């Protein structure tokens, strides 16, 4: 028979037993917060900045961008909206800054803010491109309206003769290449030109192709718009932002040629383990570059604009997300080409060829109204 045992607990040990785990939890939690960049959250006040965005919201919705901004003490609350709708929005003044995609909306916003705080920043640009799939690009090469931009078996970029492309518009894909079992007409699909900048740019591409010089009068603008209209109407009801759907496996079903921004494509390719060789870009011989302006209405907005122009982390992230960076004087940074090439993706032909000369803002707006029957 064993003697009964009494367990004696040291009161100091008991205290430690209760105290150490919570302490450890606290320390561990702090470490996690520090590492994840949220440390400023609990300890430092965060300024919430409200902003309206068009297609460039991808940038501010990026997790790394959010973390970098949070580390600098800012959280940007993003409200997405099409560029043209943005410029018309009645409660524009209630935001700290806006970020429309193109010059017409930029000008509109600045005009509406006349006499108030309005500071523009141009941190980067990205060209508007026609995104397609290899077999369709090759069909256009066979039809004599596209050319591979660089060598190799599977080029990522092609140049497109928009005049020639417009002339193919009455034919169906299977007519120009019997290998394609697609009975739809040879057209590009874009978002609604009444609402979205990339949709408006497609109008610009056709306008440049069909008219020799930008129209100077309302009458000329309307006449040119009527010539462009059939090419835009050919798609029936326009879609929404084309980019997300272009990248899903049924992308071809959504649109075989979708108007998107180059940065969306570059960012997609850089996310892949192996580059996607099915998806390729067509660059119109006369390109159009979207230079979005961050237009600030308040000191908080100014601070975000300055960070976008100066902060090395943010600028590096912009390049990783596919944007071409711009300096304070509007000069193109060299970091984009270097970074892309370093990742093994050929540098796209952005900016190499001519530019689309869009008509003056008010004439171009009139053209959009005619083409899109904007109500």
């Amino acid at each position, binding site marked *: 028979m064993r003697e009964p045992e009494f367990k004696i607990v040291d009161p100091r040990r008991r205290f430690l037993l209760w105290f150490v785990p919570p302490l450890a939890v606290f320390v561990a939690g702090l470490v996690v*917060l520090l590492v994840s960049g949220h440390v400023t959250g609990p300890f430092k006040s965060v300024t919430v900045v409200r902003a309206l965005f068009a297609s460039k919201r991808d940038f501010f919705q990026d997790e790394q961008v959010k973390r970098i901004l949070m580390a600098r003490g800012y959280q940007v609350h993003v409200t997405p909206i099409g560029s043209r709708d943005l410029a018309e929005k009645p409660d524009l003044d209630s935001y700290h800054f806006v970020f429309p995609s193109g010059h017409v909306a930029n000008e509109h916003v600045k005009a509406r803010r006349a006499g108030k705080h309005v500071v523009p920043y141009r941190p980067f640009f990205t060209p508007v491109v026609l995104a397609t799939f290899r077999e369709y690009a090759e069909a256009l090469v066979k039809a004599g309206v596209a050319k591979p931009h660089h060598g190799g078996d599977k080029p990522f970029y092609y140049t497109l003769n928009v005049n020639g492309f417009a002339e193919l518009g009455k034919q169906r894909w299977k007519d120009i290449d019997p290998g394609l079992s697609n009975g739809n007409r040879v057209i590009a699909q874009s978002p609604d030109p009444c609402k979205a900048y990339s949709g408006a740019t497609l109008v610009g591409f056709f306008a440049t192709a069909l008219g020799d010089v930008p129209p100077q009068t309302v009458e000329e603008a309307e006449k040119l718009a009527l010539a462009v209209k059939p090419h835009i109407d050919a798609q029936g009801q326009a879609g929404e932002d084309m980019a997300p*759907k272009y990248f899903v*496996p049924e992308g071809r079903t959504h649109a075989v040629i979708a108007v998107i921004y180059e940065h969306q494509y570059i960012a997609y390719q850089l996310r892949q383990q192996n580059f996607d060789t099915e998806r390729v870009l067509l660059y119109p011989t006369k390109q159009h570059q979207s230079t979005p302006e961050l237009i600030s209405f308040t000191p908080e907005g100014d601070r975000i604009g300055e960070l976008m122009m100066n902060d090395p982390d943010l600028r590096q992230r912009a390049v990783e997300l596919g944007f071409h960076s711009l300096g304070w004087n509007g000069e193109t940074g060299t970091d984009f080409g270097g970074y892309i090439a370093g990742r093994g993706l050929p540098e796209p032909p952005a900016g190499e060829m001519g530019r689309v000369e869009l008509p003056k803002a008010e004439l171009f707006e009139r053209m959009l109204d005619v083409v899109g029957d904007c109500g």
Partner: protein
Amino acid sequence: MRLLALVVLLVLTACTASTPPPVRLKMLASTELADLGPVLAELQRATGVELTVEHRGTVEASRSLDGFDLAWLSTTRFLRLRGTEPELAASIMTSPVVLGVRPGKRAVLGERPTWADVADRAALGQFHYGMADPRVSGGGMAALIGVATAAAGTGAPLRPEDVSCDRLQGFLTGRAFDVPDAVGEFARRSDVDGLVAHESELLSLNASGKLSEPLEIVYPRDGIVLSDYPLMLVEPEHRAAYDRVVEWLRSPAAQQMIADRTWRRPVESSVQRNEKLRADLGTALYFPDSTEVIDRLLLFHDRAGDGRQVVFVLDYSTSMRGPRLAGLREAFASLNGFDRFYVGETVTIVRFAGTVLEERSITVRGKEDLDALLAVVASDDLRDNTAIWAALDRALHLARGDTAVVLMTDGENNAGPSLDEFLRVGRGEVPVYPIRFGEASTAELDRVAQASGGRLVEAGAKSLLEAVREIRGCR
């Protein structure tokens, strides 16, 4: 272990400390979205947004979003046609409108079928399908638009002129039912060969075990209509909650859940998909930008059925001998797909030369009736003279109800009454579609067409088959 759990808990608390207060919103959703229950429960846990949902067919729902905070329909297209589309809409998932076929009936449609093949077999009475009511359901309407776009074959969105003639009758002949709940009806019946519906509805039905054998999914080669299920903000004041809901629904975890549980295709490209959600969809047909087109398609849909008649008045004068008669026979033999004579249609053939040589009416019940029609056209009984107006007069006497007359002639009238005498008598409402070739008089044929509400077709540049196809279904 306990320590780790506590760390996780702490981190989670740190992350969710700013979770906004719970919100309850009223949402109008397409009928087929009733399967989203578990996803919405998870949404509420993750975002604090509770959605109380009322379900209606997409077409019906698109008539008014009044009284709702959000709407989640298969498409914004019907709203956009009315100009009442909310400013904000974000596509959450996609599903094509396709055809599910019982395995035993799959061979009837042939390999890699088109909508034209489906219309062809339906017209012959060899294939019966169900679909949702297009007056209510987005899936039903998408099917109607898809089939009509394929029938027009322009590769472009339907314009009002593309639907001026009704080329859907053959297809609609095969329709066993069109009710709001087409999936439920199909599951109850065993006498229907296929179902036109969203891919998600067909795959869910297959997975439900309600069918003895799963349906085979057919993606018609001439094109499908894709629904992209946008979530729309109806009441702008709920913007913050809406943004939260969209952000969560587009997150990889939610997209995965949608793909796994509801058989819809994710819009997030990184999500792993079930093999059944990887089938190639082929080409999407463009969506018309005109309410006139939609109204007209609904009209065709509503008046489909028995009792239609087409009368062919065919010139068998001796000048038709040789290639002209061969072309005529070939045209009849080659009418297929959307143009086939369909079950329930009455086809009357009046052969004439100097007098009426033969008249024959056949109401199509199956393939053998089509063979009988071909036998009439195969006749070698050619005679002298051309009594066009006497023959047309006879044809109009044979017209019963909803009838169109097709007059095919290669010569000038040289027997029987003159055109003026023919037109002096009132001719009622039956439209006449003259097809002119050879030496026939354009002026006279055009006068008859105009007077009757029909249209003259010149077969000069094209084959007789193309000419007949051009006016098939015109009334």
